[in-house]
């Protein structure tokens, strides 16, 4: 057991750090949840991609560097420590791409991944429906067979960044007569600019139009945009949720950097001893999360599957993120109320953590039933 990075990993860290020091914008970009900010972040993605930092863990043929999970963690640590912008491409990179690597055809990978890596095509996740949140399998939007493809109809909602994104991925009911709700579903990709798609931005809690509702009226999707076998969408989708809750969406680098900024804020604001314990808890939480991730990465590198443990991860980081931001807001005092502050924005975003990617109530059920072995019950 060790925590040692290899000389090669250290060299990779140094290279990433140097590149970031030279390229990270001095001024923060406008919020990526606005049209202006979305464009600025797309340009940043292109800059990352030009020097192959956008998707370091992907194979080189798709714009990556083919690095393993430890180097990916190193890159993420450096990325957030450098104060680099949030990733506008994250839904595609973290949720769709792993699905494509596992379930898509070579043709699909070659067609979809490079433009995702460059930020030329930004993807949104279209999963939730007005009546299907945690009970995703109850979804009603459907895909009906047509010549050469499928016609989508129905409504998706709360789709992050869909207000400005180019394309979306989601699951649709293709066999309404299947005996169980999670059967007869199909996973596919569709164009948000296609005829029959209406995108209605929804203001979020922070007032930004970053969510959208999608109304689909006989939207044509060619067969080549179906991922995996029709009817097998549930299994494919579930392999994505593991990514969403687990390693990829919330890398420890993000929280290490945030905890450091919190400690700095605490000092700047006079090192109030009444808040010290919460600052300590934030530092400890970030370290715990980093080491927990190293342990999971070690298991992953040894060929083990990370299953229901990703629910531990999700509950931890989502609760942690809120506590960290609450502490920062307390330190800011009256300024905390200003909506455009970096911490205030982060706080509002953190509030969504226990809701998305499967609510924490569902995660705790998974932990209790699959990790602790408690009996299944009614939700």
């Amino acid at each position: 057991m060790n925590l040692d990075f290899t000389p090669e990993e250290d060299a990779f860290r140094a290279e990433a750090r140097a590149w970031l020091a030279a390229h990270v914008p001095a001024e923060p970009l406008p919020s990526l949840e606005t049209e202006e900010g979305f464009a600025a972040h797309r340009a940043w993605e292109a800059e990352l991609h030009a020097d192959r930092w956008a998707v370091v863990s992907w194979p080189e043929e798709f714009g990556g560097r083919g690095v393993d999970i430890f180097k990916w963690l190193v890159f993420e640590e450096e990325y957030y420590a450098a104060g680099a912008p949030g990733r506008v491409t994250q839904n595609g990179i973290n949720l769709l791409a792993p699905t494509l690597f596992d379930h898509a055809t070579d043709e699909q990978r070659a067609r979809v991944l490079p433009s995702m890596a460059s930020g030329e095509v930004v993807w949104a996740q279209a999963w939730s429906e007005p009546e299907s949140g945690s009970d995703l399998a109850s979804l009603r939007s459907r895909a009906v067979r047509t010549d050469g493809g499928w016609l989508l109809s129905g409504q998706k909602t709360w789709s992050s960044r869909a207000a400005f994104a180019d394309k979306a991925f989601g699951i649709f009911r293709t066999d309404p007569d299947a005996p169980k709700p999670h059967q007869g579903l199909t996973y596919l990709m569709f164009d948000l600019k296609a005829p029959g798609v209406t995108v209605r931005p929804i203001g979020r809690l922070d007032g930004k139009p970053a969510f959208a509702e999608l109304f689909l009226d006989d939207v044509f999707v060619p067969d080549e945009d179906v991922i995996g076998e029709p009817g097998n969408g549930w299994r494919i989708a579930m392999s994505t949720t593991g990514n969403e809750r687990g390693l990829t969406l919330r890398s420890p680098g993000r929280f290490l950097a945030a905890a450091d900024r919190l400690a700095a804020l605490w000092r700047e604001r006079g090192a109030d001893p009444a808040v010290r314990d919460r600052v300590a808890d934030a530092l400890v939480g970030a370290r715990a999360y980093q080491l927990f991730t190293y342990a999971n990465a070690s298991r992953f590198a040894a060929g083990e599957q990370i299953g229901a443990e990703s629910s531990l991860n999700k509950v931890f980081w989502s609760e942690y993120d809120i506590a960290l931001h609450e502490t920062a807001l307390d330190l800011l005092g009256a300024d905390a109320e200003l909506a455009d502050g970096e911490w205030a924005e982060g706080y509002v975003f953190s509030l969504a953590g226990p809701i998305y990617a499967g609510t924490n109530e569902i995660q705790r059920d998974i932990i209790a039933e699959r990790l602790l072995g408690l009996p299944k019950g009614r939700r």
Partner: protein
Amino acid sequence: MRFLLDTEQAEFGRTLDRMLGAAGTPAAVRAWAAGDSGPGRALWARLAETGVFALAVPEEHEGLGPLPVELAVAYVELGRHAVPGPVVETAAAAALLAELPEGTGAAKEWLPRIASGDALVSLASGAAGPYALDADAADAVLVADGDAIRLAAGHGPLRESADPARRLFVPEGGEVLARGPQAAAALARATDLAAFLTAAQSLGVGLELLRRTVEYVGQRRQFGVAIGTFQAVKHRLADALVGLEFARPLLFGAALTLDGEEIAAAKLAAGEAAYRAARAALQLHGAVGYTEELDLSLWLRKALPLRDAWGTPAQCRARLVPAAGGPAPWRESSAG
């Protein structure tokens, strides 16, 4: 990087678990609390055969160590099985004795006996409180006072702990073994080791409280169903597991560095997680959990004293965020 136990380390933990599970530890704990250290000493003797106490003793004194990762593995198991006695203090005393200036003779006398399981040694450090755990059963009691370390000549009357299996005494008198900066530095490292091993013991206590509670709520029926089917029950236990599973990597991170701040982080997280597990265990057992008869009480009563022994949560937090500030202590190491 491979931040996982290797096969031998994991097997060592399983061996201890099997051995302690078969040894009837609860009876030894109850006897210990009543002042009969016989069954507890027999348990120590069996533990010594696995090498547990030798792990903290350097090789030149007939030990195997120091081996912090193996110590963490072992002390999680000691916590899971509520092994009575000054287990933490004996290992910390070994670390202290090993670093005392040459010529005191104490290391030569006591370390081989600690390694073989023949000697139980308690340790009191003024900074951590006035009490020496189990001084009545210990073969020696070391007392640290400022930069002076002495071998106590005796002790006062029993001061009852909230956990009756932790028998507290104020040590009295005795000869000074060492004094000065080297002794103070040795004491600082021994105190860190005590905090580290208490964290491991806490984690084990928390894991066992959770295990017993999961078992109980799967059987206890109310309103016609097992109470473990209720979401309110599940969620409390899920949160207990989250706390424990995020304390675990801090413990092993601390084992690899033995850095004081990493140890404080592990102590804080493990102590709090075990305490929260105890609260959940008591609540979900209901009134039966509030009784002494149920073996659960042996672990319930440990969680709080272990959370506070060798570094309260407040002391740990103060160490992590000193008034002068500065970045998190592990940031430079993690940034290579």
